[in-house]
């Protein structure tokens, strides 16, 4: 699980172009949206693409994403449970 979280942090930083953020800055329970990291709805769509391309998980409804993308931890949990890659 910790390798998955590590991998996830790397991928998110690259995918979302978060140049100024290091893996150390990204805590497992930092809220990704709103007051935490401050990501927005376009980032949410990018994360859906990430889930699909890297882990073979298709989220058909962007609204589902809200719960899944709350933190690195919630993302990792969801991926563990649903990955096909």
């Amino acid at each position, binding site marked *: 699980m910790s390798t998955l979280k590590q991998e996830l942090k790397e991928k998110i930083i690259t*995918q979302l*172009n*978060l*140049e100024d953020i290091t893996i150390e800055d990204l805590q497992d329970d930092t809220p990704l949206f709103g007051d935490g990291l401050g990501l927005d709805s*376009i980032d949410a*769509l990018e994360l859906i693409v990430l889930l699909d391309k890297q882990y073979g998980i298709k989220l058909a409804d962007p609204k589902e994403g809200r719960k899944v993308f709350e933190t690195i931890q919630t993302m990792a949990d969801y991926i563990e449970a649903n990955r096909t890659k």
Partner: protein
Amino acid sequence: MKKIHIHSSCSISIQPGFQEDYFFEEIAEYAENGIHAIDPDYKEFIAALQLRRMGKSMRMAVYASQKAIQNAGNPKIDAVITGTGEGCLRDSEKFVEAMWDNDGGMLNPTPFIQSTHNMAAATVALALGCKGYNMTYTNNSNSFESAVLDAILYLNENPEEMILIGGLDEISEKTLEFWNSVGYVNSNNPKIPIDFKSKSIGEVNSEGAGFFVASAEKKENSLGSISAVKTQLEVEDPEEFILEFLEENGISVSEIDVVILGNNGDSRYDGIYNDLSETVFREIPQMIYKNLFGEFDTVISIAVEIGLKIFKFQRIPFALKLNNSIKENYQKILIYNQRRNKNHSLILLEK
């Protein structure tokens, strides 16, 4: 129509124009084509979280507009009117390439969103919280002129407002290769400063952005006014086009203190400027600017800034002189442009 007054400007280009009071003390030289603009420190005005998504033209636009606003004393902006010939080229290319690379999976939405032509104007408005009139003209080398015409109309309709007018264009390697394949580009010996004696074929392509804060009211520190603008897609007789414009605005050629011409080193079309240099503009000071800034659809926005700087410093920079004429006093400046013999335009600036 009443003239409009420019209170401040900021430009980004292949010369360090965004530096305070830059007036050609140092000149950047290049021996390549597809020259990228010199980047200021974008983080001065743009947070990392927004900057990360922005392509070159967008970050240039947001920086130049914010700096212009700062230079004007931070007035509230009521409208944003911009022109861009090519829009967000690189993001468009990214999305096309992603489509070709894709075999049915999901596509990243960011380049698609960023490729929308009005995204720069929208991002500027978002940064300012400006809910007013917001327009983007995308008409090749008359895009900035269209924006200026709309600005004049707008400020005559809304004389109490303060607006941003801007031109922006970015270069991309791929599109440059396409342009090269159809003979637009000087691939032989592109140089900045352009060596006009070499009579090259093709342009030296670059990128940049020029933004201005303007209103209908002259202020104590105003840099100058844009009194009139005219564009025409095709012009049979450029001399007649120019003389008609001057007559419409009640001035004679001799009252023009300097004309800024758009010679860009493409000898197939510079002849149009050369003819005018020897005829209608023969007796007045003439200057060029694309020898230092290269060519892109909205480069005329840089010429406008140069004109305003001439009003301030009351001299023509040596690097931009085309003839040896000088005047005591620079009060009226005419800018004439055409690109590949299309979109002939005239902008009249007054102190």
